[in-house]
């Protein structure tokens, strides 16, 4: 057999003509970097990604502006610190976390639901690089977008408060920068938890239900229970993570900011490890 001449199967230029029974190929080895590029290709091409990013901005900044512009102007006091004021203005994070969680869940359940997972895993049969790539790509998207949201929220809220005669906020006030950056870190870990739930449950409805239960329903139920039996509440993902960005609902009884964040990261690590174990083990 001579060199392949069919247009569709012609080797790329620079690759030597194939020997008989050993046709040339254009495909190189799978590397983690390549799988990250592949996952980024999917994520950026999906419309849902753009809509989700847009709604996160609207929810965080919009709700922040509403909070800052309503009620009496915020004035600093011993209990009303600048950090508490900013975390109140970041109330929209509680809604945005649902959007972010959905993006995370869909990153896997969307592939299982459509069947694309079979194509994905057939070309990356080692499987785990796909999970790591999704973690990297989603966290790499959510962190900058939510950082942007949080800082926008801060500047919009601070501008509104000062125009209404409230106290003047500064990023150098104690805890303010931590609160603003912390809200973005919180949402970044939330997307990883969503991703792990999507990988574990495979079905969008199941993954989303569990996510919504953990991040929305259970905190509300626990908050309404007698305090005596809710000692565990500060370890719930929402409350532990809320300790970092000072979620106003949990400031009273909370872990220290970075301990709380570490607990939240612990959930993400455990769930991701379970997802990895299952991804290796189960049939696709």
């Amino acid at each position, binding site marked *: 057999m001579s060199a392949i001449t069919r247009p569709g199967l012609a080797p790329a230029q620079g690759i030597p003509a194939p020997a008989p029974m050993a046709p040339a190929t254009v495909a190189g080895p799978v590397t983690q970097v390549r799988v990250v590029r592949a996952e980024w290709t999917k994520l950026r091409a999906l419309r849902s990604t753009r809509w989700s990013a847009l709604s996160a901005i609207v929810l965080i900044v919009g709700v922040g502006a509403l909070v800052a512009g309503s009620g009496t102007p915020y004035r600093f006091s011993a209990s009303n610190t600048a950090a508490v004021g900013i975390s109140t203005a970041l109330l929209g994070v509680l809604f945005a976390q649902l959007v972010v969680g959905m993006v995370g869940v869909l990153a896997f359940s969307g592939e299982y639901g*459509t*069947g694309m997972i079979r194509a994905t895993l*057939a070309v990356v*049969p080692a499987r785990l690089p796909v999970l790591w790539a999704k973690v990297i790509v989603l966290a790499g998207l959510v962190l900058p977008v939510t950082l942007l949201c949080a800082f926008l929220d801060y500047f919009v809220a601070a501008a509104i408060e000062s125009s209404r005669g409230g106290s003047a906020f500064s990023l150098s006030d104690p805890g303010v920068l931590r609160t603003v950056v912390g809200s973005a870190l919180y949402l970044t870990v939330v997307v990883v938890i969503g991703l792990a739930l999507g990988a574990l449950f495979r079905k969008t409805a199941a993954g989303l239900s569990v996510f919504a239960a953990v991040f929305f329903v259970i905190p509300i139920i626990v908050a309404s229970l007698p305090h005596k039996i809710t000692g565990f509440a500060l370890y719930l993902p929402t409350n532990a993570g809320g300790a970092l960005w000072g979620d106003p609902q949990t400031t009273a009884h909370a872990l220290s900011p970075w301990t709380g964040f570490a607990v939240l990261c612990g959930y993400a690590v455990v769930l991701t490890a379970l997802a990895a174990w299952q991804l290796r083990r189960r049939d696709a």
Partner: protein
Amino acid sequence: MIEIDGLTKRYGDKTAVDGLSFVVEPGVVTGFLGPNGAGKSTTMRMIAGLDRPDSGTVRVNGKHYPRAPAPMAELGILLDARSVHPGLSARANLLALARTAGISRRRVDEVIDLAGLAEVAGTRAGGFSLGMGQRLGVAAALLGQPQTVVLDEPVNGLDPDGVRWIRLLLKSLAAEGRTVLVSSHLMSEMAQTATQLIVLGRGKLITEASVTDFTDRAAGTGVLVRTPEPVRLGQLLAAPGITVINDGTDLLRVSGTTAEQIGAAAWRAHLPLYELTPTHASLEEAFMQVTQDSIEYHAGATR
């Protein structure tokens, strides 16, 4: 080359693939046949490492596929179920797969052209017809110019032009020295495309043979003889290994011998022959005969 050895896969208490062993050689198109539920798709999924065998091994080009360093160079696969993201364009679907192996955009455009998808490459795959979806799946399987190509029902939903495209494509892939395993329920299409056959029934290997041998062995391959003396000719031909069927008319169906021998025997016995016609079982007839006992889902009234 695909080497399958003692492959077994159970789903719950149902054994989908049961101690299966066969080899698919490079350089020819190998047809993968079997009734619905025979285990073809399960076997193909195990070849691609998507399902884990309960026991047995699969080797693709001599390697354990899940640990192949460059998987897309080894194996390209089209699965029976859809495996594209409907929210992504055809090009984005292909590009996402290509990126994992560092395959260029140029190659992506090449397979888009090859599969006849150039006009719809930018539209979302969710709106594709069954045939377009198949073309996209075949394009994905060819992306990495793999040494081994496995296609599950590639002509499903294709128009006549597409069917012809697949036929020529499979033959040219085999001519390039690649290993080609293809399943289909369209026996006439398979008869035109495949050289070798692997036939499954209820998860087990029924036959591994060339298409010619497979149809030669089937009932219906033989000689049709018309004579005014059917009884005498029948007695004359009777011998071990030779079957003569007479339905009471002047027609005999003889198998196990040749038209030449029947003609010579009749001439020696001075028996007149009005017709002497060698007949061949079609691939479909041969297939029906060997798989009759292993059909999982009977069509009720017809059988």
